[in-house]
């Protein structure tokens, strides 16, 4: 019984933390650019505001336009539940592994792209086309990074990967792990639409990818999509944190280790948020047709990660 309790706790925690994380990143960027910036909990206000507003739907759009937000939110939430944010041994661990998690995120991206096409506006089409391009090019890197991790752990299950690294700390510093971390970090930037690939804060239609798809949304649909985007960011941060630096994740389901796990999770998320914020203030956005070069760099990193892990055996 306690397993399921942890699952629910984890889900609630993740859902609650996500908008805050986005707020923290925005706040950090503002401070780094010597601006006061909105407080980190600003996104919660936005969500409450959006949920309260009426919805206007384009006359060209179909039922898919209305279904898409729910599917995007559901798939990202399901992915979030699979991440071992607090404990290792949990019932959901057997249901899905790292591959399933990635494909759930891809499901969300696909529905978002379709929703972008539905109203028939040029920007929606452009955003959808570019989003699918980036997602498609990121796939091989993700797969190889997963295989690099899976090789040392012997399986792609998240629990086992975390457990394996906990049991043998030296592995965390092995070249395979480090290269995989770098590759996944680049993929995170691409998938969640962070700066070098796509500017989350921009409204200049020609440059944005993620924003262009959601231009037509309003009200509670927009709230769901914003929340899902925040959830996706949290999923990637938690993955980067717990898979590569697993210390603190509770090995056994007792209250003390869980509290420690919560603390260590928050610390890891904060550290990654700072790194991302610093990166975003220093780096300018890449032209869209330079993004594949960035992704091919990450692909080579992942390839080296895999080769080093099986050469090392």
């Amino acid at each position: 019984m306690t397993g399921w309790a942890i699952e629910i706790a984890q889900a609630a925690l993740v859902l609650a933390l996500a908008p805050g994380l986005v707020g923290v990143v925005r706040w950090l960027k503002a401070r780094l650019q010597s601006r006061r910036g909105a407080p980190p909990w600003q996104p919660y206000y936005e969500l409450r505001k959006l949920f309260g507003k009426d919805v206007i739907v384009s006359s060209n759009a179909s039922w898919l336009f209305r279904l898409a937000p729910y599917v995007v939110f559901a798939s990202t939430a399901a992915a979030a539940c699979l991440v071992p944010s607090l404990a290792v041994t949990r019932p959901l661990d057997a249901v899905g592994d790292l591959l399933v998690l990635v494909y759930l995120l891809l499901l969300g991206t696909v529905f978002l792209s379709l929703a972008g096409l539905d109203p028939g506006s040029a920007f929606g089409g452009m955003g959808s086309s570019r989003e699918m391009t980036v997602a498609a090019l990121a796939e091989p890197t993700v797969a190889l990074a997963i295989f690099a991790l899976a090789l040392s752990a012997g399986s792609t299950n998240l629990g086992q990967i975390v457990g394996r690294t906990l049991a043998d700390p030296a592995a965390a510093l092995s070249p395979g792990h480090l290269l995989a971390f770098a590759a996944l970090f680049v993929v995170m930037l691409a998938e969640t639409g962070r700066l070098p690939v796509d500017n989350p804060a921009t409204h200049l239609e020609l440059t944005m990818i993620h924003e262009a798809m959601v231009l037509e949304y309003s009200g509670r649909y927009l709230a769901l999509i914003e929340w899902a985007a925040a959830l996706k960011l949290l999923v990637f941060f938690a993955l980067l944190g717990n898979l590569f630096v697993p210390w603190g994740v509770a090995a056994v389901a007792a209250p003390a280790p869980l509290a420690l796990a919560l603390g260590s999770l928050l610390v890891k998320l904060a550290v990654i948020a700072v790194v991302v914020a610093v990166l975003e203030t220093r780096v300018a956005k890449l032209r869209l047709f330079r993004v594949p070069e960035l992704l091919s760099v990450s692909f080579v990193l992942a390839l080296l990660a895999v080769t080093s892990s099986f050469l090392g055996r």
Partner: protein
Amino acid sequence: MTLETTACLSAYMVLAYLGGAFAALLPLRSGLTRALTAGGAIAGAGAGIALAARVLIAGEPFALTVPALLTVGGGVALRLDGLGAFFLLLIGVVAAPAALYGVGYSAAYAGRYSLRWLGAMLNLFLLTMSLVVLADNVLTFLLTWEAMSLASYFLVMTEHERDDTVAAGGWYLAMTHVGLALILVAFVLLSPAGGGGGFADLRAAAATLSPALRGVVFVLAVLGFGSKAGLVPLHVWLPRAHPAAPSHVSALMSGAMVKLGVYGILRVALDLLGVGPAWWGALLIGLGAASALVGVLYALTEDDLKRLLAYSSVENVGLVFIGVGAGLLFASLGEPAAATLALAAALYHALNHGVFKALLFLGAGAVAHATGSRDMNRLGGLIGRLPWTAACFLVGALAIGGLPPFNGFVSEWLLFQSLLPAIGSGAPLVAPVMTLAVGALALTAGLAAAAFVKAFGITFLALPRSDEARAAHEAPVTMRVAMVVLAALCALLGLGAAFVLPVLGGLLAGHAGLPRVAPALTAGPLLLPPGGGASMSPSLLAIGLLLALAGAWLAVRVGAARGLRVGDTWGCGRIGQTARMEYTSTAYAEPLRRVFAELYRPTEDLTIDVHPESRYFVQSRTYRSEIVPWFERYVYAPLVRWVAAGAAHTRAIQSGSAHAYLAYLVVALLALLAISLAWSASL
């Protein structure tokens, strides 16, 4: 059920198809002919499924020989073992809905093309396909194989008044004939000198063959069956023949016939030749990866919906061959459990592809039936006009894109899991090959998702781009029922993976290099690949997704029940929204075309004609872009040129001059006399 019931089931199947073919030929009203055709086909498919299910469950193969026929090849020998039963099941599962669909779809042919001929050929095509998996000696196999190609050729030629159909038919029959020649040589090389043509004799003789000869036989089989399966570089007929055929025939060809190429290679490599060296598996993985990438890359830039689906068939066959190649590789490296998983994953993907590709082709057929056009740049906005077709096409697109909770995702996940242990294995060459295979698999999965978002989005969403699209109407009921059945099957195969996998494991057991008793591949709802600790449960995942969806919907419904208005949304100040503002299929694929520019080498020409009075007012702007058809231009064109040159030379022999003719005769006499002299001198 004893052996007689299987015998009578097979007899019933053959009679049903023959009955359907004969009934179709009767001079009746077109409606009745179409109904009888579908009746015969569905009855035959049903009998086929029952037969396959019986053999799969009961486990013992069913055999039947008719010595009177085909005496030269040692009589007609039929035998259905696990491997054959699986493909028979696949044929049946695809054939029944396609035949039902055909009733509505072929109504449009009533005046122009002969429905009776179409009906008869459809039933014969299904019959010969079913007999190919039953054949148990060389001549029966070759006869049914070529008859299948012939029947499908006539089906492709149904709409013969379109000139691209005639060209497609030509390409198709030429390629399959070349394939048959390769298969013929492979089988004859394999059969023992004593002349016994049965597969049992071949199995016995294969053990005694020298490794070099076994290698030659394997390569010939891969090329021969690869040309039917659509492996690169022998795939060029597939994107021509499938779109030209009527849609329910394309569904059958892409869904079932292409898989018989896979069946052929499995029969030769697994069953007849037994365990081979490691390079066999590596060759198949290489060809599979190449086919997958070429298929998806050309599918991405395709504007014709059915050609896009045909290229995607090349891609999915490539994925299947990666699985088969991995299986053979593990078998040769002595890891039977991993081999079983890889082969099971390949078979599962073949089944899944059969189902969702048939669904997509039927959907494309419904679109063509409604709008009369297959060019995506002229479609759009059909989701409102063809709601059923759109929903089913969406299910098919998600399944083929490898997205949970549908069946495509499950088989792709299994393929990934089957490649995992190889990267860890010690053999020198294996790890790099496998890493590249995983990279290719993942890139293909990603690009496939992009291709099918484009296919669905541009065809069904937003505003209709032409009058035909605007005036489109929903397909007749028989077509919708067929599509719904297949869509349901996609979901079922996805959720029921835990039941399907053990059956696949079972039918593979006992073959060369595989364990006698199949390893446990599942534990309850969980899929458990042997060796690795990874597991996944598609059914629980689907339930989780539905719960999350329902939860979100309820929460929003209760928490934020606000008004919803449908109107004209703000478009940065433009006046009205017209169809010309939308992204077209060419535009959608433009970023990826730019990314893979080296491969596509796109040629773009932009013509802008200006208003006569002033240069500054543009009247119209046409943009045309072509990509390089590598294989046609650099593999087949030189071959055709070379044959044409040879033909031109032989034409010169018949120059018309009697003296030249007599000179040939005298020269031949003198030459032979010289040879005879030299020969007798050496005697």
